[in-house]
Structures are given as structure tokens and as C-alpha cells.
């Protein structure tokens, strides 16, 4: 176990260097006069025109060899300097901090239905293989992968906002955001639902939840279908193991065999994949937040991309990349804890 975690930790810097190097090499696709925008911390320096840009290229060492450039850039990253975001009109690092709570809130409420419903339905379809319930979940799962997030989101808005008016886009209604932005309301976390509870304001809580229903549904549908299928096949594989036959042969009730013997073991691969899947949801936030007008990281990135706000989009990618790296680490280590066999490898 110790060796396993040590190897994993030793690899961490390699991966982090690799991730930053990949992003850095990708920026080489554009010329130095464009790349210089990554280094700017104050938009006014651009006002000097072409001559000023050349001076900046020299100042930030863009005429030096590529490895020197990489080292310089890395040094700035380590110091939290990600450049100036033209689309958000603030430093990229500050913008990431500002938009993080909305995305964190969306992710928080998406993860639970995905993992628990997925595992539960997958268990049921595995036990009832090829019966009608299995066929139904199979169809739901396959349509889940085939349904683009942006089509699902728009259709949901059309019906539940356009027709019924139940679930509006955005994060809060106008009256609620006025309260949230007022001095009497303390924003502890930036997650409106949690802040509302901490402030004891139930109307705000209800309003925030009302705005979360559609985006959560949209974002979770595809991932939920995937976990369901993985749980199902893991269940099928476990049910064919000898120890399950043994458990049945010694006369244990079927309920105990399924829940105690089979399900616990079937959960092992699902646990790893759920961890990664949940992180994989991050990609979907770009589309979901754009459709539902949630001012989070994903929408910030989408707007930055369209407006060619290079520092913002790179900062965003690095941020998501780093979250993924650390999430992978946690998943791997906890996998070692759940499944004793991994420790002896």
C-alpha cells in the first residue's frame, strides 16, 4: 500500500509538468504577437500599437529559446499570475475565483443523483438481466449518450420555462439576487443554497433550488446513464463468480446473496469510475452554464473562447486540468483502500 501511494505521489510532479508543458506547447500554435497577451497584467499596455507589442515580446522574453520561455511562464503560473482576461475585465486568477462558486454549486447537486441513482438502477438491471426493466434502462442509457446536452437543455427550457414557467434560467430571481447582494445577507461560500441556509432565509433557498432543477437534470443525464451501464455489467460479472454460487448453495436468502455478496464487490470498479465521471462532468458545465445563463466557470470559458480571450481560456483549462489531476490521485488512493488486492501489486 505504501509503495503504491509513493509511486503515485512521485508521478504527480511528472504529470503536472506534462500538463503545463502540453498547454504551453499548444500556445506555440499562435505567433509571439498573439502569445504576448498571456503575459499582460494591465490592458493599457496594448495602447502603444505595433511598436509597443514588439517591446512587450522582448520584455517577456518571447524572443528567447523555447525552454527559457517555458520556465518563465511556469514561474509566473506558480506565482498565481495567469494574465489579464479581456472578456471578464479582470485578472484571470481573480475571474476564476469569482466564477467558481456557481460551478461548484451546480456540481454539488449533480453528483448525488448521478452516483446514487446510477448505482441503484444499474444494480436492478443487472439482477434482472434481459427482463423488461433491463431493456428499459438500456434504452434510457443509450438515448442518454445520444442526446446532446445542448439539445436536452434547450428542450427542457422550452417546456418547463416557456410553457409552464416553473424553472427559469439564471441562478436567482431578481428579487432574490437583490437580497443576496444586500448588506444584510452574508455570502459565506458563494453557493446560494448553502448561504441561504446559513442566513436562515428559506425563500432564497427555495428560489436557488428552483433555478438548479433544469441545469442539474441536463448535466446529470448522460453521466448517470454511463454509471448505470457500468454498474450493470459489473453486477453481471460478479454474479457469475464462484463465491456467489457458493453463497447460494449454502442456502443463503437471495436478498443477502445479492446485496451482501454480489453488490459490495460489484461496487469496486464503479467507485473508481464514478470518481472520474464526476470530474468528467466538468466538461459538460461549459454547455450547461451557457444554456442556462449560469455565471460560472464554464460559461466564462465559453465566452472567452468566442472572444479569443487567450489568457482566460488557458487559465480555465489549467484550472480544470489540475482539478482532474488531484481528483485522479484521490480516486487511485481510495481505490487502494477499497480493494485490498491493489495494495499487493
Amino acid at each position: 500500500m505504501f509503495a503504491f501511494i509513493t509511486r503515485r505521489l512521485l508521478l504527480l510532479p511528472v504529470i503536472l509538468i506534462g500538463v503545463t508543458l502540453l498547454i504551453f506547447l499548444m500556445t506555440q500554435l499562435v505567433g509571439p504577437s498573439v502569445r504576448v497577451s498571456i503575459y499582460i497584467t494591465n490592458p493599457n499596455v496594448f495602447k502603444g500599437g505595433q511598436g509597443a507589442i514588439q517591446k512587450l515580446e522582448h520584455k517577456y522574453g518571447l524572443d528567447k529559446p523555447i525552454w527559457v520561455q517555458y520556465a518563465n511562464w511556469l514561474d509566473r503560473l506558480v506565482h498565481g499570475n495567469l494574465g489579464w482576461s479581456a472578456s471578464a475585465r479582470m485578472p484571470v486568477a481573480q475571474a476564476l475565483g469569482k466564477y467558481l462558486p456557481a460551478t461548484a454549486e451546480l456540481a454539488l447537486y449533480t453528483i448525488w443523483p448521478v452516483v446514487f441513482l446510477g448505482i441503484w438502477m444499474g444494480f436492478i438491471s443487472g439482477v434482472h438481466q434481459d427482463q423488461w426493466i433491463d431493456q428499459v434502462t438500456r434504452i434510457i442509457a443509450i438515448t442518454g449518450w445520444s442526446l446532446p446536452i445542448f439539445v436536452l437543455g434547450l428542450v427542457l427550457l422550452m417546456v418547463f420555462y416557456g410553457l409552464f414557467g416553473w424553472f427559469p434560467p439564471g441562478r436567482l430571481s431578481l428579487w432574490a439576487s437583490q437580497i443576496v447582494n444586500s448588506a444584510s445577507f452574508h455570502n459565506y461560500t458563494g453557493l446560494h443554497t448553502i448561504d441561504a441556509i446559513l442566513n436562515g432565509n428559506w425563500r432564497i433557498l427555495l428560489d436557488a433550488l428552483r433555478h438548479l432543477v433544469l441545469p442539474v437534470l441536463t448535466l446529470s443525464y448522460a453521466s448517470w446513464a454511463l454509471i448505470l451501464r457500468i454498474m450493470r455489467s459489473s453486477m453481471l460479472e460478479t454474479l457469475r463468480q464462484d463465491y456467489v454460487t457458493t453463497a447460494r448453495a449454502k442456502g443463503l436468502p437471495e436478498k443477502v446473496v445479492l446485496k451482501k455478496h454480489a453488490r459490495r464487490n460489484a461496487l469496486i470498479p464503479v467507485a473508481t469510475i464514478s470518481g472520474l465521471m464526476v470530474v468528467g462532468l466538468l466538461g459538460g458545465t461549459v454547455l450547461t452554464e451557457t444554456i442556462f445563463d449560469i455565471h460560472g466557470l464554464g460559461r466564462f470559458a465559453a465566452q472567452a473562447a468566442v472572444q479569443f480571450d487567450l489568457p482566460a481560456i488557458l487559465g480555465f483549462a489549467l484550472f480544470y486540468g489540475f482539478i482532474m489531476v488531484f481528483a485522479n490521485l484521490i480516486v487511485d488512493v481510495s481505490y487502494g483502500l477499497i480493494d485490498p488486492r491493489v495494495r499487493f501489486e
Partner: protein
Amino acid sequence: MKKKKIRSRTVHKLLTNPLSFIGIVLISFFIVIAVIAPWITKPEYANRYIIPRDGYSSTPQPPSVSHPLGTTEGQYDIFYGIVWGTRTAFRIGLLVVAGIVLIGVTLGAIAGYYGGIVDEIIMRLTDIFLTFPFLVAAMVMVVLLGRGLNHVMIALVVFGWMGYARMIRGDVLAIKEIDYVAAARALGASDLRIIFRHVLPNAIYPVFVMSTMDIGSMVLTAAALSFLGLGSQVGYADWGQMISFARNWILGTDANPFAYWYTVIYPGLAIVLFVLGWNLVGDAFRDILDPRMRGSR
């Protein structure tokens, strides 16, 4: 002889399983649409992928005789866009998947066959490419390359190959220890010959399954990038872009909340059915080809 048997049994099962049969029907339908596109529409421009416009008003027009599926924002004909968008979808799906299979299988085979430091480097490279959410990575790449359909395809290839590399590596590791590969090596076969003649043919079925499903998911991601405004030029027949045209019109009017339903539903249906077709076939493929699942039904 044995191979032929496997093949004919696979085809038989694909045609008798109701779900995969629907998938095959859907894919065939889109192939027909793509082939007959010039005969069922009237192209107006030299570049036939540019959708003809009927005026410049922004408000969509409902289906009529001259526009069977209506027009979307900017008076682009929806029927024309869907028909020619089918060709765009096939081009994206087939080219991107060909690219990622080629890169992934090559790297995976090299890593698995040679092992050691080569394996370590290739697999760490795979990890690094897998670090970014696919859509995010592709987005960054397209921003750096500049918007456009070809750049979208390049971005999807650059960040799409890792699954194949991992899978093929694992298969090659398992297969190269089997006796017949050792026998081939003892007979003096070269590395390349062993990889291509003896190892890869035995590891190729899972690639088949994965690539079938990837055709759908690549079209989906390309459409997502177009939806965000990073895809093809404005007016190009492309399903994702047609959905982004529809974005401002999902609310309809006070009297009729669904007044502009056709702007979302038709292009949306095109994407869903196209991707669904490939997923249904891929899902059935997996059940048929995965030997571990064979005894279970």
C-alpha cells in the same frame, strides 16, 4: 474459415436484435440522405454546403411549401441545412474516428509490444492528454487554431486517441505472451510482422466496438463546439450551428410558447437519431463480440 463464421454470425445477430436493427436502419437512412442530397435540394451557391437564405429577417418562418421544415434565424432553410449537414456529420465522424484509431492503435501497439521505458513514456503521455475534459481540451485547441470545421476535426483527433492506446496496449500485453506469438518470433518474424499479422488482428474487435460508438460521440462533440460558436463559418450546413441559431427562439410568443419549435426540434432530432444509430449498433456489437458476455445469455 473460422473468421468467416464469426463474421456471418455477427451480421446475423445484428439483424435479428431489434435494437441494433433500428440502429442499422437509422444509419442507412442517413447514408441515403447524404447520397441523394443534391437531388432533393436546390443548391444556390458554388459551395453546396452553404445554406440558401430566403431574405434577411431574423424571425424564423414556420414550415411551408417552399420550406418544408421552416426557416431558422436569418432565414436559413432548415431542410437544406439538415440534408447537407448529414454529409458534414459523416465527414466529421468518419475522418476523426479514422484519425484517432490510427494514432491510438499505433501508440498502444508500440507501448504494449516493446514495454519498458517506451511503454512508460507513451502511457504517461496518454495520462497527460486524458487530464483535460475532452470538450475543454478541444475548445482550447480550436481557439488556438482559429474557428472552422477542419480545425475542430484536428482538435478532436489530437485529444481523442487515448482510449484506443490504453485498450490496445492491454490486449497486446496479454497476447504477446501466448505461444503462437513466441512461435512466430522463433521462426524469425520481424517485430512489425508480428505486430501486424499476429497481435493486432486478435486485438481488433474491441476497437471495432469503440470506434462505432465514437463516430456518434465525435459528431456530438463537434456539434457542441459549433453550438458554442467555434465550429464552421456562419451559414454552413452543420447541425450544431443550426441549434445555436435556435437558441434565441426557444421561448416563442405569449400566445404560443412553442411558436418556433421547429428551429430546435428538427436539427436536434437529426443529431439525436444519427448518434443513436451508431450507439445502438455499437452496443449490440459489444454484447456479441465480448466473449465474457457470451455465456451469459
